[in-house]
């Protein structure tokens, strides 16, 4: 009787302590710690310029991390996002140079190219039933290759000046880029969809067990298909954003970004096995990597060594839980062992 009571007490406490010691919280603590340490020890870190530079650099990864988190939660992966952004950028450049359309039409068509890339991935993965890892390695090469075919090794740079200034403009004196408003909006949409809609909750079920999810009425194929389409669309947006920010469209915009995005998403607590993860955690993961590398760069740590930080954080974030689990299991076992011994000793004297 007393045992069940303590059990429920432990459960109540663990709901709170889980929230405070969960992965999201740890990432948040780490982020706050990094910011505080950097503000007190790194010259020039504590300024509004930092906010601006940091955010403008982080935005592409932050945007791509949103659909990527959803895709990984359903136990799939998309390695082609950076190539999709590159293709979008290339198409945007060529359309602007050759078509004579208005820039807004060019931008819309470019984003639609991203959507088309997503549809292509989605069809191969959900309709044909191929593994997403293999498909997106293929489309990683294909989309980047098409970007080269479209624009060659040229650059298009004569985009309207106002758009570049707009992308780089800040809200008042806060240093926060104006574009950040749209980014926050997109993050909010993803957070609401994932955490507060049946569709989003279904994605977790899907990541845990495809069969179980389809038994409870989730249309597995359709859900995944839309995720890849959305991923393509967001990658298209990122392609347009990169083009405007750099004021240059080329075949190599965003190269290699897919791995940074995946690293940030996994660091943010999304399980590569699917079924686990949250949008706040992912945002924290992206900001943690971004802030840490920015602070170290300001502290004149060589550019080349920064990459170790990304890799180290990623490995620690995935190895630590299983090491912790192993230690907890040991402690639990020894406790059980002790209590069994404690029970069996009086038991034997009775008998």
């Amino acid at each position: 009787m007393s045992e069940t009571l303590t059990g429920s007490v432990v459960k109540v406490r663990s709901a709170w302590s889980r929230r405070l010691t969960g992965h999201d919280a740890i990432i948040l603590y780490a982020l706050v710690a990094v910011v505080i340490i950097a503000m007190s020890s790194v010259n020039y870190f504590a300024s509004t310029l930092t906010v601006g530079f940091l955010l403008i650099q982080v935005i592409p990864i932050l945007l791509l991390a949103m659909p990527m988190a959803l895709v990984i939660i359903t136990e799939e992966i998309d390695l082609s996002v950076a190539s999709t952004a590159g293709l979008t950028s290339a198409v945007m450049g060529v359309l602007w140079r050759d078509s004579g359309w208005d820039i807004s039409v060019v931008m819309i068509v470019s984003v639609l190219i991203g959507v088309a890339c997503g549809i292509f991935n989605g069809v191969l993965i959900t309709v044909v039933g191929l593994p997403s890892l293999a498909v997106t390695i293929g489309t990683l090469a294909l989309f980047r290759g098409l970007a080269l075919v479209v624009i060659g090794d040229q650059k298009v740079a004569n985009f309207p000046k106002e758009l570049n200034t707009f992308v780089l403009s800040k809200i008042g004196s806060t240093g926060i880029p104006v574009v950040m408003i749209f980014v926050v909006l997109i993050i909010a949409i993803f957070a609401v969809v994932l955490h507060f809609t049946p569709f989003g909750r279904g994605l977790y079920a899907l990541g845990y067990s495809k069969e179980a999810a389809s038994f409870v009425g989730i249309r597995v194929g359709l859900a995944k298909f839309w995720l890849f389409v959305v991923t393509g669309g967001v990658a298209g947006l990122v392609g347009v954003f990169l083009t405007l920010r750099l004021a240059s469209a080329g075949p190599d915009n965003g190269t290699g970004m897919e791995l940074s995005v995946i690293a940030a998403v996994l660091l943010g607590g999304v399980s590569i096995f699917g079924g686990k993860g949250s949008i706040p955690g992912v945002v924290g993961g992206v900001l943690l990597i971004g802030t840490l590398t920015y602070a170290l760069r300001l502290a004149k740590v060589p550019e080349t060594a920064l990459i170790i930080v990304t890799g180290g954080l990623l490995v620690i974030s995935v190895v630590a839980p299983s090491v912790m689990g192993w230690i907890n299991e040991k402690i639990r076992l020894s406790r059980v062992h002790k209590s069994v011994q404690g029970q069996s000793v009086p038991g034997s004297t009775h008998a």
Partner: protein
Amino acid sequence: MSTTTTAHEEKTGPAHALRSFFRGREIPVAGALIALVIVTSVINPRFLSPQSAKDLMLNATIVIILAVGQALVIITRNVDLSIGSILGLVAFGTGTMFNAFPGVPIPVVFVLGMVFGAVLGTINGLLVTSAKVPALVITLGTMYIYRGILSSWAGSKQYFSGDNPPEFGALSVDVFLGIPIISIVAIVVVIAVGFFMHSVRSGRDLYAIGSDPDAARLFGIAVSRRVIAAFLASGALTGLAGVLYTSRYNSVGANTGYGLELDVVAAVVVGGVAIAGGTGTVYGAAIGAILLSTITGALTATRVDKFWQQAIVGVLILSAILVDRIVSIRSAKKLRVSEARDV
């Protein structure tokens, strides 16, 4: 009744051997390679001139060795994304060694390079097996870490082929029976590992692990040890490739081998090794590597816009996966029918 006897005849006769040969997953890839070479040399006869053929072989060599190592890992249902960084570290290490000890014997350099690669590969293997996290994540992390170590070690320093002893550079210039020496190394590696995977027990274990890790464990296979060994072997082969890279190419520095990992995975997948593990051969992986590296040469020889190259690689990867899917659906159907007949 008569159907079963013919079925038995089919299974034992030479016709069956021939048929299973043609059903192998390497055959479509090899066919594509041969077709590519024939078409290209018809359009441009100089494509198969001795000098150009030698260049083709030299270009394929390093990717072949990397693909063989990667195939070992992928067959166990893992993947090693850090090989580009490992290759860079070993290549730069080789340059450093020749610079610091100019008289060092070349075989020692090869052994040290392979040991260095093996150590880095083993770190991957230990992390993967102890953390029970997919290799994709771990090796993504070590890819960054190894590359970061290389970058801080190398800085902006580069070693050029002129800094190495001439005999070392000669390895990728001299030919034996028309084949460059370093390509002979690659051929030996392919045959040795191919034999190991086909006929040695621990090689077969790798397939069992890739098809179903849990079943393999129940069957008594030391899964963790085999997986670590696969990473070790992949690391050692990458180390070998790193040493050969230093011999073949003009310079090694902080960026050596950057982005190579996805090319190699692509070559392996094109060669018919399923990314989900358990199927495929290192011969297939090697043919895939030759195919992908030959395409570049073929496009130049036929004066196709060089910008098409990467898109074609993408199409090849996708068609390889598609073929793989069709083959596996067919064989599953065949298996169901034959099992039903036995019942």
